[in-house]
């Protein structure tokens, strides 16, 4: 008999935890969709800066939603099956009381907190891995960089020579800006190719430049 003693019996269908569903989508399907997004936007603009801005705006909408979703799912991370909450088991980390007190639904309020949230949590949900690196800019206090050797959206894309420094990572920059903006950290976010020594392909760096108010608040918080 298969699975006897393993499957928990729920008296009421409403007590069953929600199925998390498939976490992955086809890379090809995404690549074609993204390619089409770039091609469509290309027909709507007459210069490259404009195209970059449009891709960023598309990403911004994704970022704003991703932040909302991840904050909401935060409690799920504490208790993957949510069994404790629904069936009232005493062993659960999270009880009904905690939820009503607003535990779970965590939102980062500090600069480094939100940056590592973007670098690990957001990246993991969107790209299935943590970003390659998160660094602080050396020249300016308000600049941070998230670098990726091979950005997922750029996996199949070769930029023609006549397009100069254009980077389709602008879409990802938009996502980062959407997340930061939604969390109350307004910033200017741009994507750049950075040549790597001993590597044939440049890596993509997402440059985050925070607004002055963010740094002032951060200083006040100590």
């Amino acid at each position, binding site marked *: 008999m298969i699975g006897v003693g393993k499957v928990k019996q729920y008296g009421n269908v409403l007590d069953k935890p929600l199925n998390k569903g498939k976490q992955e989508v086809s890379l*090809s399907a995404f*690549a*074609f969709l*993204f*390619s*089409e*997004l*770039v*091609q469509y936007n*290309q027909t709507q603009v007459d210069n490259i800066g404009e195209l970059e801005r449009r891709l960023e705006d598309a990403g911004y909408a994704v970022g704003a939603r991703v932040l909302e979703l991840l904050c909401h799912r935060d409690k799920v991370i504490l208790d993957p099956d949510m069994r404790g909450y629904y069936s009232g088991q005493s062993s659960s980390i999270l009880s009904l009381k905690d939820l009503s007190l607003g535990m779970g639904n965590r939102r980062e309020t500090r600069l480094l907190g939100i940056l590592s949230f973007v670098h690990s949590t957001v990246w993991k949900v969107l790209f299935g891995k943590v970003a390659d690196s998160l660094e602080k800019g050396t020249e300016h206090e308000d600049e941070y960089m998230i670098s990726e050797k091979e950005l997922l959206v750029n996996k*199949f*894309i*070769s*930029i*023609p020579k006549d*397009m100069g420094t254009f980077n*389709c990572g602008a879409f990802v920059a938009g996502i980062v800006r959407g997340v930061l903006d939604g969390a109350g950290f307004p910033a200017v976010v741009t994507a750049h190719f950075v040549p790597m020594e001993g590597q*044939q*392909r440049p890596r993509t760096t997402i440059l985050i430049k925070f607004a002055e108010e963010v740094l002032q608040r951060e200083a006040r918080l100590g």
Partner: protein
Amino acid sequence: MAAIYSLYIINKSGGLIYYKDYGSAGRMDTNDSLRVASLWHSMHAISQQLSPVSGCLGIELLQADTFDLHCFQSLTGTKFFVVCEPGAQHMENLLKFVYELYTDYVLKNPFYEMEMPIRCELFDINLTQAVQKDRVVFLGR
């Protein structure tokens, strides 16, 4: 180890969209490569009609004294063919792999215009890796 002389990709109307030669043997100028491409396109089409049995999909292998020509046609009519040393092995696998690279790095690239010459850096990089000799042996497993 068998050597590859050159690789061609032609679109469904017979236009050469990609040409690359490897090594000194069999090097051709641009005009000659265009000529080979359109000639092969026509011969391929004629062979389908001249075939004594029905359902023929065209020439897959042309064997000459000094070279072999292996051809692979995708369902959309794009043809990939490779000119190589006589008796070279595993060319079908190589062509299928080139087709895979084409679908990945050319067709998924938003800056590529269908049926036009292929100028995609990533396609070049990955193709060069695939054609490296040890890689061909690996493909033939």
